Each structure stands twice: as structure tokens, then as C-alpha cells.
């Protein structure tokens, strides 16, 4: 391989790196340029005073507050479903699973992880129709269905991180407790999990981030353009990513568009913060284990 080709290749890789950095830079600066001027309390609260809105004394109609509240409530509810099932499944797969069944479990969970988000949303929608027809006339796509569907979406993240973290423990850690007479369950619950806590938490944080940003699932299971703060689990609600989607094509005025940019910055901020936190925790764990056998 002659010198020229070699230099060509090196230059090529540098160019790709620079282009990517440029693309991300353009994206961020555009967003900030357009969005920062819009960041003020009226973007969030509209014409209602902030205290009135926060204490739920008055409804907010022109602002992002309902969407922000909707997203936060959605995240909390989905996580409540997903964490117990996810961590428990992860523990089972790492510690108790029969070698014979493992490939089947793994296959099913990998398919679940790879399913497009809209398919999960379609599933949630199908469930709501099913319940509507067979259970009660009052059930239709709503907050509850959305949070269940989102939980299904993020379950693989939690299961995988839990399973991996438990599986990657150094042998010495795994067996010390057992050697001292603890039962398998005691060992897992009281020794292994606390040891691995940051890793499991990083998986949970990743799941939270995914809940915050997902649009396709909620679009099919109950989010609407205007609904105020959800008062019951069977009601419809608003959410930030859907607001951005809706505003991007349906804006009626420049200020609505500006609100869209403001919402983008908020969403970007939330997600980036969560993902970075998750990565930091993952790194902390990796460093710790680098010194063990």
C-alpha cells in the first residue's frame, strides 16, 4: 500500500470525524439560537401565574406546564411498573435460570428489545380496543395504557443491565457470601445487588431517559394535543415529545413555534442529563471491577 493511499485514508477518517462534529454542532447551535430567546416563565405557564398553576388552582392553556407534568407523571408510572418486573427478571436470568431454558428467554427478550417502538404502541392500542370491547365501555387509549406500553418498551433495558451486572461479577464476590452460609436468595439480595447498585441504577436511568423521549408509543396510546393535567389514570394527557412533534407541523403562530423550540431545549436537556448520568455510573462500575479478579 503506497504512501498516498495511506494518507488518503487518514485524511478520510479525519474528514468524517469533522463532518459529524459539524453536524451535531449545527444542530445544537440552531436549537439554542432559536430556543433560548423563548425560555421564560410565560412559555411554561402561559397567561396563568406560576403559583396558581403549580398549586393547580388554575388551568394552564397556553404553556408547556401540562406537557411537562404529563411527561413527569408518565415516567414515574412507567418506572413503577418496569423496575420490579425488570430487576426481578434480571436476577432470575442471571442466578436461577436453567441452562436449558436460557436460550429461549434470551431470544424472546432480544426480540422485545429490538421491536420498533411503534409496534409497542400498536400493541398498547390493540389492548385498549380489546379491553374496550370485552371489559368496559369506558376504557380507551389513556394514561394507564401508555404507561404500561412504555414499561414494556423499557423493560429490556432494565433486564439487560441487571442481568449483565450480576453476571459480570468477579467470581470471588459471587461466592464469598455462599461460603459464609448465606442462601442463594440472601446472597443475591443482600450482597450482590447492593454491590452492583450503580450498574442497576444506570440501567434504570437509561430507561427513564427512554420514557422521556419516546413519541411513537404515546402517540398511539393516549397522548393528545390539549388535555391539561391528567386527573385520573384513565384520562388523556399531554407530553413534551408529542408537543414538539405536533408543533413542528401545526404551528399557528410564531410564538407557538418558539414554544416548540423551547420545549426541544427542555427535552434535550432532560435526556442528555439522564444519559450522561447513566454513562458516568457505568464507568464508575467498570473502574471498580478493573481491580478485581
Amino acid at each position, binding site marked *: *500500500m503506497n504512501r498516498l493511499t*495511506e494518507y488518503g*485514508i*487518514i485524511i*478520510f*477518517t*479525519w*474528514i468524517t*470525524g469533522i463532518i*459529524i*462534529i459539524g453536524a*451535531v454542532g*449545527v*444542530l445544537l447551535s*440552531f*436549537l439554542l439560537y432559536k430556543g433560548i430567546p423563548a425560555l421564560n416563565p410565560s412559555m411554561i405557564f402561559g397567561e396563568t401565574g406560576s403559583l396558581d398553576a403549580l398549586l393547580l388552582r388554575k388551568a394552564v392553556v397556553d404553556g408547556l406546564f401540562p406537557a411537562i407534568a404529563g411527561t413527569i407523571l408518565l415516567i414515574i408510572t412507567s418506572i413503577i411498573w418496569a423496575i*420490579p*418486573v425488570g430487576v*426481578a*427478571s434480571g*436476577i*432470575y*436470568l442471571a442466578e*436461577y435460570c436453567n441452562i436449558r431454558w436460557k436460550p*429461549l428467554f434470551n431470544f*424472546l427478550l*432480544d*426480540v*422485545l428489545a429490538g*421491536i*420498533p*417502538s*411503534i*409496534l*409497542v404502541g*400498536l*400493541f398498547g*392500542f*390493540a389492548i385498549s*380496543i380489546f379491553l374496550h370491547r370485552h371489559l368496559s365501555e369506558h376504557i380507551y387509549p389513556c394514561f394507564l395504557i401508555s404507561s404500561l406500553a412504555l414499561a*414494556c418498551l423499557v423493560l429490556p433495558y432494565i433486564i439487560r443491565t441487571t442481568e*449483565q451486572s450480576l453476571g*459480570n461479577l468477579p467470581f470471588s464476590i459471587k461466592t464469598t457470601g455462599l461460603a459464609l452460609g448465606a442462601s442463594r*436468595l440472601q446472597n443475591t439480595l443482600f450482597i450482590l445487588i447492593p454491590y452492583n447498585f450503580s450498574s442497576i441504577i444506570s440501567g434504570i436511568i437509561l430507561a427513564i*431517559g427512554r420514557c422521556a*423521549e419516546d413519541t*411513537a408509543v404515546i*402517540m*398511539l396510546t393516549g397522548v393528545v394535543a390539549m388535555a391539561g393535567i391528567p386527573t385520573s389514570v384513565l384520562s388523556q394527557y399531554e407530553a413534551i415529545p408529542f408537543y*414538539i*412533534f405536533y408543533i*413542528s*407541523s401545526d404551528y399557528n403562530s410564531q410564538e407557538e413555534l418558539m414554544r416548540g423550540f423551547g420545549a*426541544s431545549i427542555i*427535552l*434535550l436537556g432532560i*435526556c*442528555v442529563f*439522564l*444519559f450522561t448520568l447513566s454513562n458516568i455510573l457505568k464507568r464508575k462500575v467498570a473502574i471498580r471491577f478493573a481491580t478485581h479478579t
Partner: protein
Amino acid sequence: MRPFIEKCAEKGLLLSALLSASITIFILSFMLLFSLPLFREGKIVEFLRLGWNPYDGKFGVLPMVVGTVIIASFAIFIATPFGIGCSALISVFSQRSFGRFLRKLVEFMTGIPTVIYSFVAIFLLVPLVREIFQEGTGMCVLSASIILALLVLPTIVLFLTDAFNSVPKNYLNAAEALGATPVQKLIYVIIPSAWKGIISGLVLAAGRAAGDTMISLMIAGNALQIPRGLSGAARTLTSHIALIIASDYESPEFKSIFVCGLILFVFTMLIVLILRLLGYFEILRER
């Protein structure tokens, strides 16, 4: 007392795992359940045909399947050189300064929500593409593919970087001892031995690209046709589902989206099988 609680707890763990695994099966069954009427009526062949025109009673989803394939493939086509280039930069050519920064940037990119990509693209990329082509609305296959490539790039780069880094050190040392330059190491040692990881990363990214909804919904124009070229608008299976969901509950139109769901499910299964064959999951579990 203790053993009893233990037994219960273990059963509880088993139950959770069964629940999680069965979600996949539930999804499949619901798709089948809702598309069953169509299978029964023998209309299924019609669905795999061309032409979607509810007023005429035509419900072919073929244009959407083609749209998905074209947009996803083109996105991977764009993203691969960039992915290989960036990974090479990060793990071979610039392991200290620029490479580390690039890696941090790519990790940062994984956190950017999809809606944000498409939202910004509507205002920045679409007018640009419209001017370049001098025709069309700018909402076309090219725009969607470019943004989709940006979306899946972090997946490719992070995967490839890991694959490059897990080449056994003695291979690299041997090459260096023989006087290889970094480029020669890359081309002759790293890429050949990491090819499985590279292909896995690309397949994973392709799966992600085909399954994405928001970008194709907002940027690809949603026209009901097989795109005539890069500047033609197209519709993907995913955006089709999103668009139709607002319709009737009874009409064949509506039932067709469950067929789309079925197609997507089968597609995901295929991707998972391919990745298994490539040993992707072995690599993942090792890490």
C-alpha cells in the same frame, strides 16, 4: 419460615421473568388476532400488492414495505463510511485527544431524542435539499435517509469501536513488530478480525433505522408511492401505522395496520436471528 419465604421469592422471580418473556409472545398474538379476519377473508395477498387507495378498496402495503427498505438501506449506506471513519479515528489514529472528544460526542448523541433530530431537520435540511434538487418539496427519501443516518451513527460507531478495541493485543503487537503503520494495522489486521462485530453493528443499526417512526413521519413526505428516486417522497411501514391509527376501527384500512405490525415483528425476529448467527450476543454477554 425462612425456606418458605425463599421459595415464594424464587417463584416470584420466575414469574417476573416469564411475564417479561411472554410480552413478546403477547405482541405477536395480538397482531395475529387483529389481522385474522383479513387472513380468513383471503385478502392477504391483496395486501402484499401495490396501490393504497381506500376509496377504491385497495389496501396494498407494498409501497410502504419498499419505502422502509429504501430509506433504511440508504441511511445505512450513508452512515457506514462515517461510522468506520469515526471508529478508526477513535480507536486507532487518534487515541488521545481528538478521538476521546469524538467518542464523548458520540456518546452524547445517543441521548438526543429522535423528535429533536426531525424537528431541526424540518427547518434546516428540508429547504436545503429542496434547493439542491431544484424540484420536489424537500421532504423526500434523501432528507429522511440523511437524518436517519445521523440517528444510527452513534450505534455504529460505539459498536465498531468496541469491536476494534477487542482485537487481541498480540495481533496488533505482531503487526507493529513487523513494521506496520497504523493504516496498515487497520486495514490488514483490525478490520478482518473484527468483521463479525462490524457486521453486527451494521445489522443492529439497520434494524433501528427500519423501526424508526418519527423521522420518516415528519421528513419523508408520506406519499403513497414507490419513490422514483432520491428526491421522491415515500412512506414507511412505521409512519403508515402512525398515520392510519386515526381512522375507523372497523374498516379494512384499519385492519391493515396490524398486518404492517406483523411484518415489522417478523422483520425484528429476522434481525435477531442474523445477529445470533454472527455471535453478537456472545460478544455482548462477554462484556
